[in-house]
């Protein structure tokens, strides 16, 4: 068997944890209990989980505005994330950052930020630190198809290639940047080809096939550790929810421009269902075992929301705490 049973269980569990957590936000967002803008990751779990499973906790990742999945996949604490999105003092960013600023330094998650491509060069810097120290760590930069429009990405690719830095450029191509389909943002070529002129090895991967993601990431990590980085990976995937919030809905007006047939087609390639079916078909897990995992994760998510809701708000007299270290 190519994959260890423990690994398969972990992949399934982590994807499910992200999915159930994201979906648990839908109701609180709609009722206004959660006010912080949330860019939900539902549908894209295969990418974060597959990539992070190829890393150790010493490796680094940086995220963007849609980073609930990156944070959880890298091993960030679930209750602390939910508490952060509720903007509570117990949150991973102490309620100062919210959904778009998730961090778990203990797990190698060095932060996420919504300035498009803003963290790409930061991941470059983490890879540079690793190269200077020769400590074998790999840095992963998660960014979307939208970020390919920013010069900072291209500058970073060039420098990474020049210095053979241990960085994986992980592009999550979900075909849209807010209201803009990717075809309106660039001429119709594969995104992964943008790395080629820099002399960077690059490939396209089915992002909803977590095992394919894991294989591609494992090979990329190996290259980086050997000093033969960087690697560019384009993951094809799709978000189930709105750009921000459960639905693209502006002041009561439905603004999702994505064709329903397109959404349906992607729903049929659900990353969780794909892995679940594989595990059952191979006889690796019984339906009862998968249900057991689900029950376990449901409880975790429930607990995390209870923790968040019970957590205190930051104190107003501590508004300026953390401005300086």
């Amino acid at each position, binding site marked *: 068997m190519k994959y260890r049973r423990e690994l398969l269980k972990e992949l399934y569990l982590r994807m499910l944890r992200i999915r159930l957590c994201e979906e648990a936000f839908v109701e609180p967002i709609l009722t206004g209990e959660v*006010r*912080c*803008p949330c860019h939900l990751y539902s549908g894209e779990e295969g990418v974060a989980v597959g990539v992070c499973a190829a890393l150790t906790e010493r490796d680094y990742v940086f995220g963007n505005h849609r980073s609930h999945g990156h944070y959880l996949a890298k091993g960030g604490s679930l209750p602390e994330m939910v508490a952060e999105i509720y*903007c*509570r003092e117990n949150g991973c*960013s102490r*309620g*100062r*950052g*919210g959904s*778009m*600023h998730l961090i778990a330094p203990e797990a190698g998650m060095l932060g996420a*930020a*919504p*300035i*498009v*491509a*803003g963290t790409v060069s930061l991941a470059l810097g983490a890879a540079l630190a690793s190269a200077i120290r020769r400590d074998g760590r790999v840095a992963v930069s998660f960014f979307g198809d*939208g*970020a390919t*429009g*920013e*010069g*900072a990405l291209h500058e970073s690719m060039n420098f990474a290639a020049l210095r053979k830095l241990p960085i994986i450029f992980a592009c999550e191509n979900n075909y849209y*940047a*807010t*209201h*803009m389909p990717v075809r*309106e*943002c*660039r001429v119709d070529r594969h995104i992964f080809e943008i790395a080629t002129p820099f002399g960077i090895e690059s490939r396209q991967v089915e992002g909803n096939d977590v095992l394919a993601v894991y294989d591609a990431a494992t090979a990329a990590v190996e290259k980086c550790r050997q000093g033969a980085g960087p690697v560019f990976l384009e993951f094809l995937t799709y978000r189930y929810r709105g*750009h921000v919030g459960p639905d693209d809905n*502006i*002041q009561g*007006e439905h*603004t999702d421009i994505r064709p329903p047939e397109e959404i349906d087609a992607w729903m049929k390639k659900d990353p969780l269902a794909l892995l679940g079916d594989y595990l059952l078909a191979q006889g690796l897990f019984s339906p009862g075992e998968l249900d057991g995992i689900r029950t376990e994760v449901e409880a975790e998510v429930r607990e995390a929301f209870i923790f968040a809701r019970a957590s205190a*708000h*930051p104190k*107003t007299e501590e*508004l*300026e705490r953390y*401005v300086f270290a």
Partner: protein
Amino acid sequence: MSSHRILSYSLAINEALHQTMAADPAVFLIGQGVKSPWYVGNTAQGLRERFGDERVIDTPVSENAMTGAAVGAALAGMRPVVVHPRMDFMFYAFDPIVNEAANWHYMNGGRLPVPVVFWGIINRGGEQAAQHSQALHGMFAHVPGLKVVMPASPYDAKGLMVAAIQDRNPVVFIDDRWLYRLEEPVPEEIYAVEIGRARIARVGADVTITASSFMVREALQAAELLAEEGVAAEVVDLRTIKPLDEAALLASVRKTGRLVVADGGWRSFGAAAEIAALAAERAFDSLRAPVVRVALPDCPAPASAVLEKAYYRTGEDIIRAVRGIL
């Protein structure tokens, strides 16, 4: 007739764009979201249908190049308006704005004007946190060669957008999402509000409150409540941050002898500090109390709504400041 027509702040901007684009084929609009309500609300509505996608250009996420392209098009004889749906995204565009556009005319001995509008929208609150909340007018106003306008009313939103587009210099036009639904009578015909002219939004003799953009609303509310206490506050709506209408400002301070500066930016080294310095330098003899700044603490915008409430300044803060110097 026309002067009684009511228009919202955001639609006043929209009308300015319609009328300037119709009047001058050199005017075009470029930026993220101009074809979608996602970003710019209704400020760009109907423009694409009317002027086509050659003059109303939605762009990839590429602030540096798109802004530079607007500057270059201006050098080549166009009158571009480049919109940034959130000011925070303009940091990627600081090079074309500050190094290139602001300096170009001077460093080339006045050989070429740079008639470009950098339109940045303040979009804050709602637990959006540090990178989705910033008001950067103080930074732009610091730069020689840039003009900076911040309308507080629908009338000025239209008139200042028209003036910005007609100006021969780079103008940073800053509006605020918190004002978009504000309504008042706006003339139907095209008109410009002169850049560099403040407006006395309320007359009073006891204290001067200066404000711009959203803070004008807060200042007016504060003045209303202060009037009930028998305090007559004069509210100066700056309208233009740079060049500052020094004459209007100083005249008011000389009249009242007291100054509270309300500003939506950070407290230190910003627009509020500049105005306080001006009063100290040029109206020192008239001041009967220290100048007070009501501005954001020197702290990034927090996510938590509880902290946001402590962070943003309101009319109450202005009232407290006024009481403190009476």
